[in-house]
């Protein structure tokens, strides 16, 4: 045998071993009962030398039960809300500039700001000075009025932001329920798609997801030592050089946080932390709540992070706040990420926000009374940030960010906070476009039937090949089995989901993998009939059929790729399986069977049953 054959054999063996190795987590995953699969029982059952436990095949929603929702974000309403607020802003701008006008309000269709005036030219000029970079003056305003519309790119941005907010809000809420492996992503221009495997209560899911975000401002009660007794009830959190050290003990732990007090002194505040929200909520209910005075205090939960980049890990922690909700998001007119204007250390990312007229009054009072205290912004029951109030804020405020972070991180954080503040300001309701709920009892039955169907299909094909092509048929059968292993291994590696149509796709790719072997064997038969020697017939057969196999696979691949881009959920699962199957089939038919065939026909006198 020549060197090239040795190399090819080595590749085949390596691929085979790696595939089997890759399937270890998947093997352990399916060995467990469906209830135990998504818990840490699974993590523990996978041996430490195996690939990362996350890399396993999961069952699609159609096979394990759960909820698939596609939510449409009412972006037009978000834009209309923006117009309403902008009308207020323009009114106060005009008042400030002393331009004569008789009120500004949204136009009848709600998409423009309409100001009534007797001096249209002056009003138009003044507003253009202030808002010219975002708004333009469309033609066709009713007599005695001037209209201002948002430029297209601005409207696009509002829409995109509204969807982004909706996604963020939904993610927050879902994190709170502790659903395992939820999949939340934006789809198209106005949709958010949510997959909740194993989740059984669609009514609850819809109810919680459908609400618009609730934003509250509360003052942190940093002076209170109420939480200190927890130190004797919980273990202390393990800490490393740069803060929290993972993993955190199960059932929560305590740590300290240095806070500055209005008096100028500082204090070590007790904070309770846990790895996830569900755990922390439990600790709070059982151990923390009894320590506080509910008429005056409340416990907020936020998320903190340690490490950077790929090492970044989050945990949940408590904030001790006053029970009174000082303000709600209704009063915020707008918020955006911006940059610090200062001469020294300028250009740092900050968040600026604007209050509505009524909000400004409340904010002024609140901030004057609580200078140097922390104000927690709570979005949907999650403390997003708790910056110190540096000075009195009224209609326009800004939030400076804590130090010790890179510019990139600060910028991201600023955008995040702006989004949170705006989430309170812009109501962007969601509607359910698509809902697919699969009960938990349906899945196992389908898995059983699907597996049976696949095995029967595979069996029939194997028997046919062995009977029809005999020796070469058996070689094709070995390749076919390897093909199956390879497909499952690659799917496991990418953590793909197996759906019901995916099983059908798997079966189909096995059939198609045989096609290539049929082409090869038929060609070899033809060469043998033409009087070629066995060895030569095999070589010629593979060489001549190579491009045919590639062509046949590429055309089907083209269709599968289009399907992957079109389909969602189960159908996408089918396309993914088909693509992986076709690639594996090319490898097994062109490389694997050839290595075996060449081995069996290595002598000129060899005979081949084909």
């Amino acid at each position, binding site marked *: 045998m020549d060197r090239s054959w040795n190399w090819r054999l080595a590749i085949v063996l390596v691929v085979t071993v790696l595939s089997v190795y890759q399937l270890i987590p998947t093997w352990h995953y399916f060995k467990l009962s469906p209830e135990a699969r998504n818990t840490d029982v699974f993590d523990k059952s996978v041996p430490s030398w195996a690939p990362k436990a996350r890399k396993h095949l999961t069952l699609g929603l159609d096979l394990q039960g759960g909820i698939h929702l596609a939510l449409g974000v009412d972006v037009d309403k978000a834009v209309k809300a923006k117009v309403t607020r902008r009308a207020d802003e323009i009114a106060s701008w005009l008042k400030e500039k002393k331009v004569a006008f008789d009120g500004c309000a949204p136009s009848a269709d709600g998409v423009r700001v309409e100001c009534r005036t007797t001096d249209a030219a002056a009003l138009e000029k003044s507003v253009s000075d202030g808002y010219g970079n975002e708004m333009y003056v469309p033609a066709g305003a009713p007599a005695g009025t001037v209209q201002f519309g948002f430029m297209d790119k601005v409207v696009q941005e509002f829409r995109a932001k509204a969807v982004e907010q909706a996604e963020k809000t939904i993610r927050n809420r879902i994190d709170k329920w502790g659903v395992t492996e939820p999949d939340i992503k934006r789809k198209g221009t106005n949709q958010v798609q949510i997959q909740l495997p194993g989740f059984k209560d669609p009514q609850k899911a819809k109810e919680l997801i459908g609400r618009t975000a609730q934003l509250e401002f509360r003052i942190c009660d940093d002076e209170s030592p109420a939480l200190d007794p927890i130190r004797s009830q919980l273990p202390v959190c393990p800490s490393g050089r740069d803060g929290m050290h993972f993993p955190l003990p199960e059932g929560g732990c305590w740590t300290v946080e240095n806070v500055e007090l209005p008096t100028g002194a500082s204090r070590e505040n007790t904070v309770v932390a846990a790895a996830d929200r569900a755990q922390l909520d439990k600790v709070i209910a059982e151990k923390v709540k009894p320590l506080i005075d509910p008429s005056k205090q409340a416990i907020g939960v936020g998320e903190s992070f340690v490490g950077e980049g790929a090492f970044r890990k989050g945990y949940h922690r408590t904030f001790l706040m006053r029970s009174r909700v000082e303000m709600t998001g209704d009063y915020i007119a707008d918020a955006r990420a911006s940059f610090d204007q200062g001469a020294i250390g300028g250009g740092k990312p900050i968040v600026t926000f604007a209050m509505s007229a009524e909000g400004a009054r409340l904010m002024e009072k609140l901030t004057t009374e609580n200078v140097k205290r922390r104000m927690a912004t709570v979005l949907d029951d999650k403390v997003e940030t708790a910056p110190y109030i540096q000075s009195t804020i009224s209609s326009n405020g800004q939030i400076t960010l804590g130090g010790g972070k890179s510019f990139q991180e600060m910028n991201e954080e600023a955008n995040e906070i702006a989004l949170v503040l705006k989430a309170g300001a812009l109501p962007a309701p969601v509607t359910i*476009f698509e809902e697919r*709920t699969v009960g938990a009892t*349906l899945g196992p039955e389908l898995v059983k*039937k699907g597996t049976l169907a696949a095995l029967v299909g595979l069996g029939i094909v194997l028997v046919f090949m062995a009977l029809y092509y005999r020796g070469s048929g058996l070689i094709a059968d070995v390749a076919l089995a390897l093909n199956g292993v390879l497909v499952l291994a690659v799917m496991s590696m990418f953590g793909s989901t197996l759906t019901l149509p995916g099983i059908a796709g798997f079966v189909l790719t096995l059939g198609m993998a045989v096609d290539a072997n049929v082409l090869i064997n038929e060609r070899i038969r033809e060469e043998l009939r033409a009087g070629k020697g066995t060895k030569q017939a095999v070589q010629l057969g593979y060489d001549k059929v190579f491009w045919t196999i590639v062509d046949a696979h590429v055309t089907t691949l083209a*269709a599968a790729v289009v399907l992957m881009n079109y389909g969602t959920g189960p159908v996408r699962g089918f396309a993914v399986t088909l693509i992986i199957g076709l690639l594996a089939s090319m490898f097994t038919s062109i490389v694997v069977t050839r290595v075996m065939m060449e081995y069996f026909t290595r002598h000129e006198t060899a005979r081949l049953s084909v």
Partner: protein
Amino acid sequence: MIFKSFDIVPHGTKFDFVGKRHIAVVLSLIVNLAVIGWSIKGLNFGVDFAGGTEMEVKFSQAVDPGAIRHGVEELGFKDASVQTYGAESENTFLIRVGRVAMMSAADFEKVVQAVRAQLPVKGSPSFNADMGDKIEFQFESPVDTAALRAAVEGAGVRVADVRNEQGLAAGTRSYTVITQGIREKVEHDLGVRFAQAKPEVRRVEYVGPAVGRELRNQGFKAVLYAMALIVIYVGLRFDFRFSPGVIIAIVHDAIITFGYFAFSGREFNLTSIAVILTVVGYSVNDTVVVYDRIRENGLKLQGKALGDIVNLSINETLGRTFLTSFATALSLIGLLIFGVGEIWDFAMAMLIGIVVGTYSTWFIAAPMTVWLEERAAKKAGAKATIA
């Protein structure tokens, strides 16, 4: 080995595929036109494409489908369809209604009147039957949600939830009333009607009509894109003179596969699009095998008439074009035995697509190329050959 090597398709056949093309074309044309005509009459669109609500309900004992339909119709769904799902013995039914909202425009008017009579509604409340069971109310000042709920229920519409949301303009409040949806209504009604048979809702699919339309259009486009990609690939790899034959063959295969859904009245949904796309990609495989041989023979037998080369090439490759399809078809047997519902349809339509794909390779694609070449040659006054 006990078996001696045998060929399912004997080699050395001399069937005149090119000569029979007229009969084949007429036959295919009739079938294709029949499919198109039949599908204009109406396809059984699933909720994916038509929008609506679909529920899979399993009963613990035998239930008369007529009684289920009657029950669903009494709830006000005149267009409800009730199908047995899977084997008879499983007592499972698919209930489909075309609407996504329980409430009709008339109900909505009644609700608005009732609420206006009791609470200070600002502007006109909004309701969109395409979007489900939501009514949005605006008020000048906060109102009691219980009072709002009572007002809506007073008008005869059951309320699932009342949400308090922020108003658009400063100071105003907006409330969203979620009325009881189709799933809850049907589930409740079946539970009462068939208490003994313990109905269990195993799966619910709900697709808004706007999304349905979008999915339908996208699905149609996806099929076209895939066809275009394949035609371009085959054109680049072989010769663009082969393209018309390929186009005609894949359109032919796609239409006939589609015909399965049109004639059988089985549900046409996302999975059906997946089948058609796969058939389009797969049926070209055989065509590619034959074209490859035509090119090979064309070089070997220069000067021979194109028709003869094509006939020879199809005959020489008859074994493999038949066997590849046969092997793939074999793999589908398991799905045909154990598959239920859309998976069975998937396997059946795929099987038809595979068979038709092979037929079109033999009788449509390659002979079409000959026909087109001969026409072009007649115009140019030369003899058709291939190089």
